[in-house]
């Protein structure tokens, strides 16, 4: 339906008729205001009908859940862009999403009370229009409860960045894992800026020993690359809500800082190669530790 036809439906003739019946000038003014409001609304909708906009929002929300594995009602509502909430509830009601109460929802700050996962119908709907398929876990109870706050932080920030146009796109950990070799450390999400890739690591707990070494190695390797692999990202941002963790990572990624390389032996145990490496100078300024207030 075109703008012209939509405007034509709200013809002044109706208003004039009413005016003729009631003969009240006030009503005539209201009809003119209503007409203007409709015109503004149509302009904001870029000439799309409400039905088309609703379908797009549904598609966007389902695709979001498919890419992240799960999401929260607040994230989807924010993604919907509307001031009114209810997109997530409508999708649950339509049988496209499944809502599941979380273990610590409401008790722990930043953990959503409910998580939303795709139903089989929702998955089918998403995969109908996607070009690249991803492995999707339909069992909502396999969503890691200990990472809900972590993932929710990443999702909310990504949704805000997308809506505000601060990033051109993003790739989730699942998508990155599909594109990379097995065993390669993936960031939580990669944001696509104008001409660069920003890897994001949300770190809410401190890492020590082997895990810290592997984290440093993975980040440095992803930034610098080697003879067989090009650098994967231009920058990496480590986001945390703990000043202590921020300080710890800043020290770990300072140029010249030492770390060890670990590998699994034939029996499957992690062993250090007794090979101490240093963080190269050219990562200086490219690994950014950001403290957030949740």
């Amino acid at each position, binding site marked *: 339906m075109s703008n012209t036809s939509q405007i034509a439906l709200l013809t002044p003739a109706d208003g004039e008729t009413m005016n003729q019946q009631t003969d009240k000038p006030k009503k005539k003014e209201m009809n003119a205001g209503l007409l203007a409001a409709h015109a503004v609304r149509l302009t904001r909708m870029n000439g799309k009908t409400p039905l088309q906009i609703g379908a797009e929002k549904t598609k966007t929300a389902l695709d979001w859940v498919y890419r992240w594995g799960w999401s929260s009602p607040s994230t989807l509502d924010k993604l919907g862009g509307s001031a009114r909430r209810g997109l997530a509830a409508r999708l649950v009601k339509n049988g496209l999403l499944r809502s599941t109460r979380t273990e610590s929802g409401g008790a722990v700050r930043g953990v959503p009370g409910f998580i939303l996962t795709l139903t089989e119908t929702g998955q089918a709907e998403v995969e109908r229009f996607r070009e690249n398929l991803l492995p999707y876990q339909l069992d909502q109870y396999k969503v890691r409860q200990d990472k809900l706050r972590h993932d929710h*932080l990443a999702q909310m*920030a*990504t949704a*805000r*960045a997308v809506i*505000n146009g*601060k*990033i051109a796109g993003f790739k989730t950990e699942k998508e990155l894992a599909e594109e990379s070799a097995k065993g390669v450390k993936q960031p939580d999400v990669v*944001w696509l*800026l*104008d*001409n*660069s890739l*920003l890897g994001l690591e949300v770190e809410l707990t401190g890492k020590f020993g082997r895990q810290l070494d592997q984290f440093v190695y993975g980040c440095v390797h992803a930034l610098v690359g080697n003879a067989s692999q090009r650098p994967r990202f*231009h*920058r990496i*941002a480590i*986001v945390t809500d703990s000043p202590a963790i921020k300080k710890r990572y800043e020290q770990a990624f300072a140029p010249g800082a030492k770390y060890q390389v670990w590998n699994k032996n034939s029996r499957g145990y992690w062993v250090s190669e007794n090979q101490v490496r240093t963080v190269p100078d050219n990562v200086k*300024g490219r690994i*950014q530790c*950001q403290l*957030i*207030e949740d």
Partner: protein
Amino acid sequence: MPAHRGLIVALVFALSSCTDTDMLERENKALRQQIEVRQAQIDYNEKQASVARGCDLWRAICPDSMVARGRAALADGYSGSGGWFWLSFILKLVAIGAAPGAFVGVAAWLWFRFAKPAAGEAEAARMIVSSAQAEAEKAQQIATQLRQDAQNTAMRLAAERKNLVEIQHQTKLARDELKITKQAMDALSSFS
């Protein structure tokens, strides 16, 4: 010669005593004519002898047709000491020296006329050429120096251009990095 004269006078005296006067006068006249002829013949032979002697002195270069009679006269006893001796001798010397003298004279004339000025001109030309060569060498040295300077300048310019390109590249990288940093900071504000 005196011997012949005496003989003739005695003959005249002898004849004049035995004949009449006319006859004697005629005879005397005839004898006088004979004496004159003989005297002319003697003078001629003496002249030929002088010429032959002058021609044959030091080196005989005169043709036989010219000196045969004189040589015969010399053999007959003529002395060949007259003025013709010196004349023929000098003429012979002149004849001997004429060819080389002419050759030397012509050569000298040719040398003064052509070779000497040509030599001067050649010397002048050689000096001009030498000077021009010196100028050319100097110009060549200047050109070589200028070429070297130009080459050095070109190399320096190339190096500076390379540095400039590198600086521009580094500046662009720094700008890109700054832009990425701003974009990243702006995007990360979404966590707030």
